[in-house]
């Protein structure tokens, strides 16, 4: 029964594909679930951070003496309190972002922190810290930041392939593609050249970052926090604090949304430093303003497109130059943007060039399909405009150029079986496509792509003496993954879903697990869960063989029980999981299955979105009238939560397209650090979000599962822009399409 990591053509699912109740449901509807800020410890202090009011400033000195002298203050830390340890560049950036060193690089950059007996004392102490700043010129917009004479944030951070003479804030260059762009454009009947812009948006998870740290004088430390990856927190904090990884135990709380924004640390190393200095547990909880000012939004972008098309809709060449500013440190997601821009299409001539740019803004963090939505906004808008300019059906044009099995993608891979064409055909046949539209209304479509990740994954599956099952996994459950793991284990073992309970391990209880990101969990942890279940089944077959006194090769596992099989096995009554578990002590001891893998074969994902909007010509306001998501899930393990991912991604995209933006003043200070002015979609803004789940099996997973979480945010920006452009009668190339912007576009034509 060796694991066949390939799709095994299984179709007769009993548990997978059903809509069971999630195991954490009751905790979450009763308020019992414990999120980041819900933990306490005896003797706990409150930690608070002092943040830079300047967009860019040299920190000449910090005087903490008055704060330290305040009654009730037990520790004050600055960068000087972090140990001098050797860090790789990426981890150094994380530390510098958590606590500024020589310079404050953006409005909201942490410069000092206090731990006090109460919140009110901590707030008073912050006001007593005196920071002597020397303000420096700053730069916010990506195109400004790239200029050779722009204020430089860092020295010596450019990678080698950045051409000489580029501004110091241009830190990396990426290039992908094949063929000959100029030759391809020469064959086109029509060539479009356009520049598209998107603003930085925040993941907007409702739960602010929170943690509780305890550092003992023996060097052992415990950290409770809301994170997408407790191992990432452990490894990063251990490096920064000079601890060995085994001495720092990190426990992930329930997580109140992340969308990529909790794939790094912000306050955790600070809480550890405060706890170490005070000798007491320290709890830190960010305010919403701190979340918006100092945690990672996504990049803002400026993208040039050149696209050629023949009269019959064949794309002859596609070129994109992408400029993303990712805040104060290198690492904008422009590489993913450059790789994904043309990924849905089978193109002979395609090239993308990406520029990673730093600016005086918070360090960007991953945001759901990082880098891809902006690139798709540009490419899918250009395809729409060209198709309509040639009098062609935009869905037909996409079908004509769609990537299929065997297509060599612009970023280099050759696709196995993929689902793009299926999403387009289903969209074309859907009643939404032909539904009538009224005055000032428009319909838009767009496609989207995401890579999907695999990665390091450990699962332990324990068979309990009473014949039930625990699955132990190491990835925080951000949208129902415990249900999915229990379902896959139940499917594999042939036991009811209710007999399996999945729990999330702390870092000391299971081997390394990569962060919950890249839509990897249902795929990779699912793969490891299936493998662990198969290992347990092998062991249980061995135990049954022992009881029956036959060769273990003559035992198979079917319908939840070991059964004799083959001509020489003899007649024996089947032994169920519970039967075998009950006598495990007498047949060799406890039964468990393990899987430790670096999962590959995640299987790329595609979607097509269709949206109807109405534009108010008087105000420029846009109303979403109807929205349908068509996406390939490979195999939907829990269809409710697959639909939920489709709907949630679409609505985050609606926010990005219509409302959300980081707005800076001339002084480089963020003007809208709150949910009143950084306005995410609310229930009354929206219709129901219809979904169509397609299932084109991923050849790299036994059940055909693909990740589904991220692709759904890739098409909406362009789908909505195409819809609004049709409704308003004018092409929108800049996000967000806020009422003033749309009104101005209508008025100026």
């Amino acid at each position: 029964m060796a694991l066949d990591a390939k799709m095994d053509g299984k179709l007769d699912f009993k548990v997978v594909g059903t809509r069971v109740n999630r195991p954490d449901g009751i905790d979450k509807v009763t308020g019992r679930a414990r999120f980041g800020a819900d933990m306490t410890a005896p003797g706990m202090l409150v930690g608070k951070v002092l943040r830079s009011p300047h967009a860019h400033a040299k920190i000449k000195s910090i005087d903490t003496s008055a704060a330290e002298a305040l009654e009730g203050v037990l520790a004050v830390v600055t960068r000087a309190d972090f140990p001098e340890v050797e860090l790789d560049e990426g981890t150094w950036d994380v530390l510098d972002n958590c606590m500024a060193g020589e310079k404050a690089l953006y409005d909201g950059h942490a410069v000092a922190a206090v731990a006090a007996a109460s919140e009110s004392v901590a707030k008073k102490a912050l006001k007593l810290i005196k920071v002597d700043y020397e303000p420096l010129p700053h730069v916010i917009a990506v195109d400004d930041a790239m200029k050779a004479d722009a204020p430089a944030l860092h020295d010596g951070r450019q990678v080698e392939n950045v051409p000489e003479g580029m501004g110091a804030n241009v830190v990396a260059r990426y290039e992908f593609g094949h063929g000959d762009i100029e030759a391809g454009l020469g064959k086109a009947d029509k060539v479009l050249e356009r520049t598209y812009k998107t603003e930085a948006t925040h993941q907007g998870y409702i739960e602010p970052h929170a943690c509780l740290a305890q550092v003992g004088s023996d060097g052992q430390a415990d950290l409770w926090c809301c994170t997408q990856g407790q191992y990432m927190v452990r490894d990063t904090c251990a490096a920064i604090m000079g601890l060995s990884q085994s001495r720092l135990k990190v426990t992930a709380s329930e997580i109140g949304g992340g969308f990529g924004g909790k794939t790094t640390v912000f306050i955790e190393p600070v809480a550890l430093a405060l706890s170490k200095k005070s000798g007491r547990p320290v709890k830190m909880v960010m305010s919403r303003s701190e979340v918006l000012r100092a945690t990672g939004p996504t990049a803002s972008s400026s993208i040039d497109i050149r696209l050629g098309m023949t009269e019959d809709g064949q794309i002859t060449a596609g070129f994109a130059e992408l400029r993303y500013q990712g805040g104060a440190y290198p690492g904008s997601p422009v590489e993913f943007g450059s790789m994904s821009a043309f990924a849905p299409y089978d193109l002979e001539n395609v090239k993308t060039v990406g520029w990673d740019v730093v600016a005086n803004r918070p360090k960007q963090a991953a945001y759901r399909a990082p880098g891809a939505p902006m690139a798709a906004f540009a490419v899918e808008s250009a395809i729409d405009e060209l198709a309509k300019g040639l009098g062609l059906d935009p869905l037909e044009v996409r079908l004509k150029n769609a990537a299929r099995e065997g297509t060599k993608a612009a970023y280099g891979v050759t696709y196995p079986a993929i689902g793009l064409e299926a999403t387009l055909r289903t969209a074309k046949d859907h009643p939404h496509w032909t539904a009538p539209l009224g005055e000032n209304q428009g319909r838009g479509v767009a496609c989207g792509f995401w890579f999907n990740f695999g990665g390091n994954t450990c699962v332990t599956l324990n068979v309990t003496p009473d014949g039930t099952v625990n699955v132990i996994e190491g990835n925080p459950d951000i949208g129902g993954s415990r249900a999915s793991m229990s379902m896959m284990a139940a499917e594999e073992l042939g036991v009811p879903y209710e007999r399996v309970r999945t729990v999330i391990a702390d870092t000391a209880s299971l081997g390394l697990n990569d962060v919950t990101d890249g839509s990897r969990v249902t795929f990779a942890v699912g793969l490891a869960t299936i493998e662990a279940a198969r290992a347990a089944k092998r062991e249980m077959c061995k135990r049954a063989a022992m009881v029956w006194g036959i060769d273990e090769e003559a035992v198979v596992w079917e319908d939840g029980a070991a059964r004799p099989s083959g001509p020489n096995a003899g007649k024996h009554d089947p032994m169920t999981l519970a039967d075998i578990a009950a006598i495990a002590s007498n047949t060799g001891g406890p039964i468990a299955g393990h899987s430790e893998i670096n999962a590959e074969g995640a299987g790329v994902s595609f979607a097509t979105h269709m949206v109807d909007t109405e534009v108010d010509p008087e105000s420029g306001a846009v109303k979403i009238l109807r929205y349908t998501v068509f996406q390939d899930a490979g195999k939907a393990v829990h269809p409710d939560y697959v639909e939920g991912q489709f709907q949630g991604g679409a609505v985050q995209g609606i926010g990005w397209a219509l409302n959300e933006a980081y707005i800076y003043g001339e002084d480089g200070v963020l003007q809208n650090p709150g949910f009143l002015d950084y306005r995410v979609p609310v229930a009354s803004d929206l219709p129901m979000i219809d979904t169509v789940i397609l299932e084109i099996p991923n050849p790299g997973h036994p059940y055909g599962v693909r990740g589904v979480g991220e692709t759904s945010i890739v098409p909406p920006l362009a789908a909505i822009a195409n819809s609004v452009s049709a409704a308003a009668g004018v092409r929108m190339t800049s996000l967000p399409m806020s009422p003033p912007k749309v009104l101005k576009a209508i008025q100026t034509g």
Partner: protein
Amino acid sequence: MSMIHVTTTINGVAQEYLCEADETLLDVLRDRLGMTGSKEGCGTGDCGACSVTVDDRLVCSCLMLGAEAEGRKVETIEGMAEGETLHPLQRKFIEHAALQCGICTPGILVAAKSLLEHNPNPTEEEARYWLAGNLCRCTGYDKIIRAVMAAAEEMREAS
């Protein structure tokens, strides 16, 4: 600092506490009484994660002082189920997968319960506008609205 003594009723139980003059009801619930079901998503009344009712009126507990609860009747998420019996809204939220991460869920449930007490037969639009003060970033609201409508229907049939 001198503390203020408050006598109030929370989820039907008489409760006394001391709080600072500038302390919010949300901080009192979470930090003094250990009732962490109400969440702080913004602290400025924009997200609704801290929703409670005070004398049957829906409020953001982050915008009300703990001292203002004197003599009032406060209801929180912790009081919604009766023992092990879930409120129909709680049950429908689980059945309809109306939560993903679950951080907004307590506030939305409290707000939805308040809606159905004021209007047992809301239209979808009325439900959407009533819940417009409760942000959810995971679900796109679709399954939340469906769960609220389904609970409303079940409660109407039962009454």
